[in-house]
């Protein structure tokens, strides 16, 4: 009986061996998401035929169906959880919008002077584009946003994600915005 007890750990060790074999098996097809990914490969940059504009999609970007009625267009960026989308609103006050975004990432409100210091301005489709990078390093959340005036409305491109992800892809977002070509309509 005592010998049996001594042999027990060795037996259990042997029983736990056997892992490490390469195995092959068949499964029913069940990968719609991966198939969809292959149908729209992320390798090629392609124009984004979204509502009223086209733009060059950076590598790894994919246009996806908007998740709400308010959104004009939505995009995903491979390897990140960034949610980048366009909405169109009639209001365009910079300070209140930037402070709303700051509040969403847990930052306190800023004065107009502070906001303008951090604001970048460039041209998108021949229009002025006011561009903001808002990062809360403490909780790791951030928003990259751009406001383009297209009277009577304002277009808001907003990217939400972690600070690390947004910083890594900020250059792509700027390139995307600068490549925008409007398809006519609006005030043009």
């Amino acid at each position, binding site marked *: 009986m005592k010998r049996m*007890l001594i042999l027990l*750990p060795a037996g*259990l060790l042997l029983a*736990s061996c056997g*892992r*490490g*074999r*390469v*195995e*092959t*098996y*068949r*499964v*029913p*097809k069940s*990968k719609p*998401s*991966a198939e969809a*990914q*292959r149908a729209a490969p992320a*390798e090629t940059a392609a124009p984004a035929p979204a509502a009223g504009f086209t733009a060059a999609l950076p*590598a*790894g970007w994919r246009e996806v169906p908007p*998740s709400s009625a308010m959104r004009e267009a939505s995009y*995903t960026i*491979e*390897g*990140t*959880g960034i949610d980048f989308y366009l909405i169109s609103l009639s209001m365009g006050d910079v300070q209140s919008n930037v402070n709303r975004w700051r509040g969403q990432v847990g930052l306190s409100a800023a004065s107009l002077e502070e906001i303008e210091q951090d604001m970048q301005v460039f041209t998108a489709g021949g229009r002025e584009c006011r561009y903001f990078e808002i990062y809360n390093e403490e909780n790791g959340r951030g928003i990259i946003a751009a406001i383009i005036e297209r009277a009577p409305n304002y277009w808001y491109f907003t990217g939400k994600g972690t600070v*690390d*992800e947004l910083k*890594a*892809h900020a*250059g*792509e977002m700027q390139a995307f915005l600068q490549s925008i070509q409007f398809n006519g309509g609006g005030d043009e």
Partner: protein
Amino acid sequence: MNKILSFLQSLKLTVWLLSLSMVLVFAGTLAQVDKGIWTVMDQYFRTYLALIDLPVFFPRTWNVPHFLIPFPGGFLLGWLLTANLLAVHAHTFKVLAGGWRRTAGLAVFALGVLVVVGVMLGWGTAPVAATEDDAFWRVFLRLGRGAAAAAVLYAACVLLYRQRAGMVLLHGGILFLLIGEFFTALFAVEATMTIKEGETVNFLDRSQELELAFTETSRPDYDTVTVIPQPRLKDGDVVSDANLPFDVKIHRFMANSTQPRPLENVPAVMKAGYPQYESYGSRLYIGETREVSGATGQRNAPAVDVELLDPETGTPLGRYILSLWMYPNFVNRSWDMPTAISFGGKNYEAYLRFRREYAKAPGGSPFSIQLLDFVHEKYEGTQMPKDFASKILLVNEGDGVERELRIWMNNPLRYARRTFYQSGYLPDDSGTILQVVRNDTWMIPYLSCMIVFVGMGAQFIQSFGRYLRRNA
């Protein structure tokens, strides 16, 4: 032989073993500052020989050389403690009964063992148990079952050991707990099931093991999956298999890797020496990084740097980086990044993923779970979760099971020798994450607890009775 026995019976050995256990637990706890919890479990506790990292005992800012100190591992200490307890037991608690009493005692003991096995395997309980009742009564009922087993064992001890029955029983309870924990360490399996609303899933992700999976998707009716398990992913090894048209050379297995980011944004100093990968690695940077601390609750994302080789000539066919970051269930379905490989007219999708186990009932028939609805209620006006629950459809056609059930916090589903806990949810409440635990010894703590309780109670009552009689 006598020397060995007297060594095993000595109290000194008990004290030494307990002291060594304390040092091991201390070192293992400190090690979790630098390493993941499961790495520490394997390196310190679930092993016969632990290798303690010397720097764990010093502030990390001190540049202490990285020596590994050999030390008795958790399994070795556990078995020595068990041997110590058994030896003391055999020496101190001699069977006092003879004749019919001994026979009856052994018969009742056998009955007690049978009751213990029955309680452990859940004889007489429902095969599908999603509890709707109060958690308190559920635990109470389990302790009640444990008490029934303990009562039978106590009767056996009374027959065999007479007035020492209580002491024998409570020592037996401790021994049972020790052995139970060893079996838990060896055979318990933790997994997760990630299901989107409306989706049906028939596999579990074994979250402590990995595999490199190549899925051949060329056929219209089914896929053929070839998996290389984690123990085979050793640096420098070449894995060949008749079912793969290429050999797989493992350049590097990384215990943790960085989240993918555009290669063009990575500083040149980091890109120097970055291999020329195919597929995602050609435009995304995924590098090795240090393991996350077990104290932070973060998870490691292992990665593997592989090169495919022609099996005949050894000619390189392409180098790939595959990281757990690319596996959708690791990133809560935020994205899905299968690495597409075409070779010999066949298309493959490759992932480094959690080891996949297809769900089967003990009888062998497969089962699946469909998520009908996921409810996530928050306290009004706040983001604080009030309740989150999964309404599921459990289907096992082979066993004729089709049940709509609800799994919510602290109210798991028990089915097919597994327990399904509500563990988390997907972004935008679009799905659920169930933690699935298979632990056939999960009742042992309840049983040992009640065995020790009955033993201590009996011992106390007996001593108290003796005291009262003496003072009467």
